[in-house]
């Protein structure tokens, strides 16, 4: 059937569902009966519902704190989450391992077993599908804060079924953001279609009175992504989700490093997502934002990493994003120990609390940067709808196919990979090479001017070496890359 941005009819959804649940043995759990799952979800306290918590936080102008965390063995995972909660995490994650993300449940099974035997983790996350509803419910019942699945799965249908039936109230991802940065050869049609299912499932829960939050993955490749690119993807995914009945969406952004650009990005993202939703007829969707602490290569030294974490938190607090995802001082080395992860939470929470009553001051400069992002997003959105002849889902597929939108450093072969970012003299992320992206001449001129200023200042030619230097720079302790 041809992909289109259209709510999946109930029967079709239920029919597909049978197939999805038969994918792996844990799909046959009686707990996956929808009536049962809805009843169970309704029996949980409101304080465990992320959709509600986000509404509350946004009203209070507060920024919630959430780490990433997941280990293969169930008991260890519970212990980990309880520790993070005690460190002040407002929202708890379960980061899913990479085999599960690729639907390789057999390998995940092996990974769990070996991790148990060797007494050390061999998987990089929590294999939720293998643990099934029974395991995931146990996790949920062992903590107080709302739970969210965080992954990177092009086909997360079974995973989504399992976590929602377990009382987890949020699912990260989307047909673009969990494909382009996370896969090599999954067609966008396929991942978008699969995520329509995931969103439809959330829509089903909503129709039956259970609020569920959905969060497109904002940072994409985490590496020098211009704010307008990531915002456009987030807005598209918000619109696709809303069509399937999602009512509570958190759009995300990965910190760039220039404070003004970062705050401008969060503010614009909130405003434009709401605007597009309204414009397209989705009037009852609640929108909030999530700010990711620096998502690119981290410094190796733990003191420096701790500095970067607090700096990220400062910017998040000033932006008044509704939620912030934390890193740990061990980021550059590997999956953090429980203690290191808790350290990141404690440190981040401290800064958020300290800055509770301050926000970025309005200025001409901030306004200019917001206008710039707005103009760029508008440009991209217009050409996506154009490419789809009015249909967003088709538009997204074709726009990527034609390189009209392009994500830097993405592994997917369905991404053009021609765009090259680089920083300007103040560290703002700009575009050095546009590929076939459909930005207007005016926008291109703006970026060229900014990059030229830097080239002049650094006495160097404009080239990929600039981008490379910028990829390394934050890890080496500077925002703007310098020639070696």
């Amino acid at each position, binding site marked *: 059937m041809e992909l289109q941005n259209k709510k999946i009819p109930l029967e079709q959804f239920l029919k597909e569902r049978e197939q999805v649940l038969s994918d792996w043995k844990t799909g046959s759990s009686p707990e996956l009966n929808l009536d049962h799952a809805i009843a169970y979800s309704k029996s949980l306290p409101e304080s465990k519902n992320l959709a509600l918590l986000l509404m509350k936080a946004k009203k209070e102008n507060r920024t919630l704190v959430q780490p990433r965390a997941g280990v293969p063995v169930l008991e260890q995972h519970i212990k980990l989450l309880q520790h993070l909660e005690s460190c002040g995490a407002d929202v708890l994650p379960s980061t899913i391992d990479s085999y599960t*993300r690729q639907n390789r449940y057999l390998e995940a099974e092996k990974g769990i077993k070996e991790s148990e035997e060797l007494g050390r*983790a061999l998987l990089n996350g929590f294999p939720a599908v293998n643990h099934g509803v029974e395991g995931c419910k146990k996790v949920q019942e062992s903590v107080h804060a709302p739970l969210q699945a965080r992954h990177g799965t092009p086909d997360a249908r079974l995973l989504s079924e399992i976590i929602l039936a377990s009382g987890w109230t949020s699912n990260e991802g989307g047909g673009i953001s969990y494909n382009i940065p996370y896969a090599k050869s999954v067609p966008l049609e396929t991942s978008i279609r699969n995520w329509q299912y995931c969103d439809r499932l959330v829509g089903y829960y909503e129709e039956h009175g259970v609020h569920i939050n959905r969060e497109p993955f904002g940072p994409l490749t985490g590496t020098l992504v211009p704010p307008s690119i990531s915002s456009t993807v987030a807005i598209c995914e918000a619109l696709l989700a809303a069509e399937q009945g999602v009512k509570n969406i958190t759009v995300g952004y990965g910190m760039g490093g220039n404070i003004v650009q970062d705050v401008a990005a969060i503010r614009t993202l909130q405003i434009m997502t709401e605007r597009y939703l309204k414009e397209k007829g989705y009037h009852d969707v609640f929108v909030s934002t999530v700010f990711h602490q620096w998502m690119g290569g981290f410094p190796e030294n733990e003191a420096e990493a701790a500095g970067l974490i607090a700096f990220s938190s400062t910017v998040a607090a000033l932006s008044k994003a509704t939620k912030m995802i934390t890193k740990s001082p061990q980021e550059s*080395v590997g*999956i953090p*120990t429980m203690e290191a992860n808790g350290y990141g939470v404690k440190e981040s929470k401290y800064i958020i609390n300290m800055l509770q009553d301050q926000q970025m001051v309005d200025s001409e400069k901030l306004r200019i940067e917001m206008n710039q992002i707005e103009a760029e997003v508008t440009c991209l959105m217009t050409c996506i709808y154009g490419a789809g002849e009015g249909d967003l889902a088709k538009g997204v597929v074709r726009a990527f196919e034609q390189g009209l939108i392009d994500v830097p450093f993405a592994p997917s072969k369905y991404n053009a990979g021609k765009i090259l970012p680089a920083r300007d003299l103040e560290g703002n992320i700009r575009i050095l090479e546009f590929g076939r992206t459909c930005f207007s001449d005016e926008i291109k001129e703006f970026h060229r001017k900014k990059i030229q200023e830097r080239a002049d200042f650094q006495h160097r030619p404009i080239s990929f070496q600039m981008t490379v230097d910028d990829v390394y720079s934050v890890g080496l302790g500077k925002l703007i890359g310098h020639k070696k």
Partner: protein
Amino acid sequence: MKSIVIGVIGSDVHAVGNKIIEYTLENAGYNVVNIGVLSSQEDFINAAIETNASLIMVSSLYGHGELDCRGMRDKCVEAGIENILLYVGGNIVVGKQNFDEVKNRFTKMGFNRVYPPGTPIDQALGDIHQDLGE
């Protein structure tokens, strides 16, 4: 011009380092065969045979390196390229572990060089140069 096969093994999609390794090795004068992310042991070995490569550089960033790399040397032997150089680098195990032990594990698997987290490709150029003797 000697050929080097590069890629990211297993279910790993970390693409940034891979692109930079390609760029750096080409600048250093090698013929780079980049099989990209999400590559199996077979993908590496087939590419090496096809291009008559002297060295396979395996990247593993996401933590499953230990599971993904096991038996790779045996597969090389089976495929008739028993003497090919095997390097591995990135963040090759889960979490912060004692690197001597980690190195030991991968050396036993038959890797000729094993790099700790945070070793940028530039720092390995000397080793490559020495091992490929050009």
